[in-house]
Structures are given as C-alpha cells and as structure tokens.
C-alpha cells in the first residue's frame, strides 16, 4: 500500500472516530431526559468545562505569562460589562499584544 494512500486511510479513521463521539448522544437519545440530577448536571457542564479549559491554559498560551494573565483580566472585565463575543476576544488579543510590546 502506498504511503500516500495509507495516510488518507489514517485521516479518514481519525475523522470517523471523532464523528462517532460527536453524534453518539443524538442517535441514542431522542427525547430530553427528565431526571433532575442529570438535568442539573448538564446545566453545570458547559460552565465547568469552559472554565477548566480557560485557566490556567490562557496563561500558558502566550510568550509571557504576564500577558496571558492580562488577557484573563481584560476578558473578564470586558465580558462583565456586557461586551459581546467578538469584543471580549478582541480585548484579550489586544491586551496580549500591548503587554508583550512592553515586557
């Protein structure tokens, strides 16, 4: 088997395995689950997941940890005072750019 063909089989396998994770819940459960614990659990899931993925990763994503910390503060303030998605993301990027100019 040529290595070019093999790499595409590899890519296809990776894609299918990922799709399986994505669509699994949608294929097995057709009606909302009424269980109160499960509903409560799922209510908190997105906030916990996003919080865990944000910190401390944001501090490690930049060249200088100080810039990442600055982005965290800028993002929290911007979002707290009603900034939309685009504005908050922009505030984070700008603060990293500015802090790294100085540091």
């Amino acid at each position, binding site marked *: 088997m040529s290595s070019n063909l093999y*790499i595409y089989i*590899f*890519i296809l*396998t*990776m*894609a299918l*395995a*990922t*799709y*399986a*994770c*994505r*669509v*699994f*819940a*949608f*294929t097995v459960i057709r*009606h*909302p689950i009424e269980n*109160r*614990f499960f*509903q*409560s*659990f*799922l*209510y*908190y899931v*997105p*906030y*916990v*997941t*996003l*919080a*865990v*993925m*944000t*910190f*401390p*990763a*944001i501090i490690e*994503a*930049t060249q200088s940890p100080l*810039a990442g910390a600055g*982005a965290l503060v800028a*993002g*929290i303030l*911007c*979002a*707290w005072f009603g*900034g939309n*998605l*685009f504005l*908050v*993301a*922009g505030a*984070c*990027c700008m603060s*990293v750019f500015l802090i*790294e*100019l100085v540091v």
Partner: protein
Amino acid sequence: MSGKDREGFVLGMRHGIPIAMGYFAVAFSLGITARDCGFSPLQGFVASITTYASAGQYIGFTLYAARATLIQLILMTVITNARYLLMGFALNQRLPEGTSLGKRLLTGLTITDEIFGITIARPWEVNPFYPFGAFVVSVPCWSVGTALGIMMGNILPAAAVSALGVALYGMFLAVIVPASKKDKIVAAVVLVSFAASFAAVHAPVVSGLSAGNRTILLTVVISSCAAILFPRYEKGENNEQ
C-alpha cells in the same frame, strides 16, 4: 430552511468570526506539528476539514509519526474526544422535541469546544442552524490555517501568534462571565473550576493525565457535586433564586 433557521444561521456565522480568528492562529501552530509528523499541506488540510479537533488531531498526527496502528488511533481519538460525548448529551437536551434525525446529526457534527460553548450559551431551545453557521465560518479557517502552518512554518511573527492564541479563551470568558454575573452559584462553580484546574496541573497523578482527560475528570466531578448541592428545577428556568 425556514426564516427562523436562516436567522439562526446568520447569527451563528457572525458569532463564528472570533472563533475563526482564534482557530486560524491555533491551526497554524498545529500545522507546524503536522509538518514535523510528515503531513503535506493538502493532507493537513483534509485532516483538519474532516476532524476539526485540536487535541484530537495533535494526538492523531503524533500517532501517525510513531507508526501507530489504526486500532490505537481509534482508541486514542475516542479517549481524547470523550468530552464531545458529554457535550453531545448537553446539546441534545436543548433541541426542540421532535427535531428530525437529520437536524440532530447536523447539530452533532458541529461540536467543537468553541462552537459548543457559544451554542450552549443561547437561550433555552437551540436551532441546529446556529452552530452550523459558526461551523461554516470557522472550520475552513481551521483547515486553511493548518495547511499554511505546514507550508510556512514559522513565518507568522511570534507576537501575532501569541495575541491570536488567546482569542479562544476570550470567547470562553464571554460565555462563563455573563452567566456568573446572573447566577451566584454558577459564579462559585466557575471559581472552583478555575482553582481545581490550576491544582490539577500541579497535583501528582492527575497532572500526568492529558489535558483532555483532566478536563473530563474535573467536569464530571465538579458538575456532579454542583448538581447534588444545587439542583436546578424546570427546564428553561432562568436562575432566579
């Protein structure tokens, strides 16, 4: 597509723009890894437009370089992307009753950390075309970014990569901060999550897990505790204590 669908689609596309920016930067650095693992720009592009999962692809590329078997690839892909299972369950709850299988599958196919984040932040019922709009804008950027990373390596100035790299986290903050402002319990849960996540990076044993698996473990433990201590009531109930 009904009028409501079109409305959702357009809004999703707009909200997809910051995601696309962040994806571009992250995909660029992923491309550098892909090149080291022996992927051509076209192969990297195809991998990104079919899989569009950062950690999953990173693992996949390194497994390819290590000449892993397809079975190993499947196992590692499922383990790395297990959080998509949880996200699928959460989104599935939010589709209107009687949503067709086609629309359910469409919603599932749009799941990435970021698109899930903005979709779950919508008011109660989710229109599948909203995440699809974000998907249409952001995944091509992800794929082109990967290909460019493979082609150009380190041409993009480090300052630009560094600045664009936090766009994703900005979007996460745009989801969790307003919810924390509205609901003190969510605020407390978010703070505990920050602290636990920080601790987990340094704790023995747990720090040995991959970032994806740490995310799953912390999500399940913290969300379960919160659900037991502070159960929610009706669906759509909006946090008035």
